[in-house]
């Protein structure tokens, strides 16, 4: 029962956090100098139909008091009116709808590649702490953390172009439903680049969690019982160090939902990050607002899921 109540508390907390997120997103763009939103509507008015302009005015709640604007805005968002992009004349929900699958797929692929790699390397390094292998893996991990994604991505794109005559191109993006092979051939390189940083982080977590468990009493006992080292390693140690590892993988996955912007930009993938970046550059505020709200919501939900898995894996946490 306490566990259930704790979960309920977390979900309630999530709702509170989301309201806070909405307030922050709203406030950030309402604190713009002058009436930038009005001005923006003016510049692009020629491009939008009267209906689209009305939808955008409703979305922003223009001409109302600030608290009223906030309530109107939330109401519109909950009713599915995410505004209209003043630069393309497309409604934001459609834009987000086509961008979400790209980013989610990228995050999933990167996690599927990076997490097992990071765990394997972490175990490898922790096998003999301080040894040559440990040093090698740790150095590689440090490099993986320090190498900015934009550098790695730029180099990968240049090599792909020079050697394989492959050039990323947003207009020729093939979605998963169109062709699995065609889609993977475009997604695999960006996913690999993302996986590097993720693997490095997971490796470090795995290594330290593994070492913590390996030093604990019950492993010493197991060793005393004469169990084979390999069996101890995989069966006992790794299983007991799974909590921080799973947590870290979950957190990293959540981060990828909002952190693929650089990769999408360099590889010209039509995902959420690129949509958001272009919207920021072109001051397409409705797109910025809705995209940020969506990504933050996804991130919070993923974090909640991680928290729940964490509880499931480690019953001790349920009591706090």
């Amino acid at each position: 029962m306490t566990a259930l109540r704790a979960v309920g508390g977390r979900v309630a907390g999530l709702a509170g956090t989301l309201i806070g997120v909405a307030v922050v997103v709203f406030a950030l763009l309402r604190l713009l100098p002058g009436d930038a939103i009005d001005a923006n509507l003016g510049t692009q008015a020629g491009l939008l139909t009267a209906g689209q302009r009305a939808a955008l005015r409703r979305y922003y709640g223009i001409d109302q008091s600030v608290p009223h604007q906030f309530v109107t805005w939330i109401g519109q968002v909950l009713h599915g009116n995410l505004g209209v992009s003043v630069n393309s004349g497309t409604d934001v929900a459609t834009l987000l709808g086509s961008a979400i699958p790209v980013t989610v797929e990228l995050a999933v692929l990167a996690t599927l590649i990076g997490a097992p790699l990071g765990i394997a390397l972490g175990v490898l390094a922790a096998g003999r702490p301080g040894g040559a292998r440990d040093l090698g893996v740790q150095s590689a991990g440090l490099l993986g953390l320090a190498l900015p994604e934009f550098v790695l991505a730029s180099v990968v794109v240049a090599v792909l172009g020079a050697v394989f005559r492959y050039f990323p191109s947003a207009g020729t993006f093939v979605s998963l439903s169109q062709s699995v092979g065609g889609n993977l051939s475009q997604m695999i390189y960006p996913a690999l680049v993302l996986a590097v940083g993720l693997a490095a982080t997971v490796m470090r977590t795995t290594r330290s969690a593994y070492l913590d468990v390996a030093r604990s009493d019950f492993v010493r006992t197991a060793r005393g019982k004469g169990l084979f080292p390999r069996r101890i390693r995989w069966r006992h140690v790794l299983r007991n160090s799974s909590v921080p590892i799973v947590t870290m993988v979950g957190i990293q996955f959540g981060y990828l939902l909002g952190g693929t912007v650089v990769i999408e930009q360099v590889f010209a993938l039509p995902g959420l990050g690129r949509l958001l970046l272009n919207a920021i550059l072109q001051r397409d505020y409705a797109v910025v607002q809705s995209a940020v709200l969506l990504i933050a919501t996804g991130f919070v939900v993923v974090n909640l899921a991680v928290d729940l898995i964490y509880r499931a894996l480690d019953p001790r946490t349920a009591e706090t």
Partner: protein
Amino acid sequence: MFRHRLLRAFALAGAVSAVVAACSPAGSGNAGKKSHGPLVVARTVDLDGLDPAVATAFGTVQTLQLIFDTLLRTDADGRLVPGLAKSWETSKDGRTLTFHLQQGVRFHNGDALTADAVVATLDRVRDEATASVVRSNLLAVTKVTAPDPNTAVIKLSHPDGSVLHTLTLTGTAILDPADIKAGRLAQAANGTGPFKLAGRTQGQKVDLTANSAYFGGAPKLPGVEFRVIPDENSILAGLRAGSFDAGVLTDPNVVAQAHGGVKIAKTPSMAYHALMLNGRRKPLDRLPVRQAIACAIDRKQVVDTAVAGQGTVTGPITSPGYHLSPTDGLPCTPGDAAAAKKLLGGTTVDLKMLVMSGGYASAVNEAQNLQAQLSKIGVKLTIDQQPTNVYVKRWSKADFDVALALNGGMSSPYLMYARYFGDGASLAKAAGLDSPPIAKLLAQAGASTEERLSDATVAQLQRTMLQQSPWVWLFTDNNVVATQPNVKGLGITADNSLRSLQSATRG
């Protein structure tokens, strides 16, 4: 860097077209080097609409030019040559233009072309409700009539030689009166041109088939397929891999790498890069200050650093066929810092430079080079990067000290600058300066009934513009089409036309 490469043809002057970067999937199958089937032409842009009267985007105009015909055309030197009108004459008083149409021309749907089509088309273009971009060029037209089926007559309120040049623009392409009546111009591309529209997939491709009944001779190619490939590196790679027969390139860095295995045809574009000075603000209201800035800038250096040498230094007039010195008229040789300093009189100047970001590839590099060059004479430029929509708004109001711009050019020098510096010009505000000497020359050129302004008239106009230095003209890009070696006779014109597809062959 992430620059939209779609915007080369961004003709700020006239209606500013919206930047639409279509991000939809496209097939990537190989057309191969097979000698049957359509000629596959890759380009970054798509066909956005079918109505010639409102077409502004570069890819749209380039496609519609193949489907429709205009009364007149220009040759490589900017001279008027026959189109749907096989001959024409101007009356002595310059107020009546008479056109004799080609015989036996049919629209793609089979309707015969008559002078009524000319009347209906031009009346539609002149109608404010059509919102045509060329309407403002036809303000001198009072009436269009068809005395007989093969003759069309245009009456003018005053002599205006530029009307003939306007009749070469895709905006005045001749339409089937039945389509105008039925209001289906946005749905049916029914022209008289060498190619017919056979199909299109938005964001992916446009299929054209040869019009075997074309009055100028049936095309030798069975058809043309335009493929939308948004990245020019991919276009070049695809050409090398044999996926396309031809590709339209605009990014100078890509063009610089296009050698070996592909043929390159290039023509200096009419669109020009310029530093616009706001002569209504201090201290740019003083002629010596503007001249000092014009004198300090070594144009060749801008071309070398900003576009990897892929450009041609130009003066104000980019209309083809006029061969003018790009700097004659300035009180110095450009790049001469000492002379520039002297003109400036030892003072220092701080200016903010409006620069478009995310528009065309070379903007920020040009800005940095200009900044470095001008700092040598004590002119300090601060770069103010703005996204396209903000830039355009401020550009049109001349809300800047100086602005780095890529403006569209035209085959008529008069049309090209009357809208900025002429009396009552529509873009007078954006021009940033009211210059009586330039306005006077433009008025004279406008009243001229010459079909093509004489070299002497244009040279004087260019000299005066350089002497007045309202802006600093820098360079034009090259319009480039790269082809497989077996494609013969395909070139690109200064206004990005691929009309040569009509006579091109593939071996």
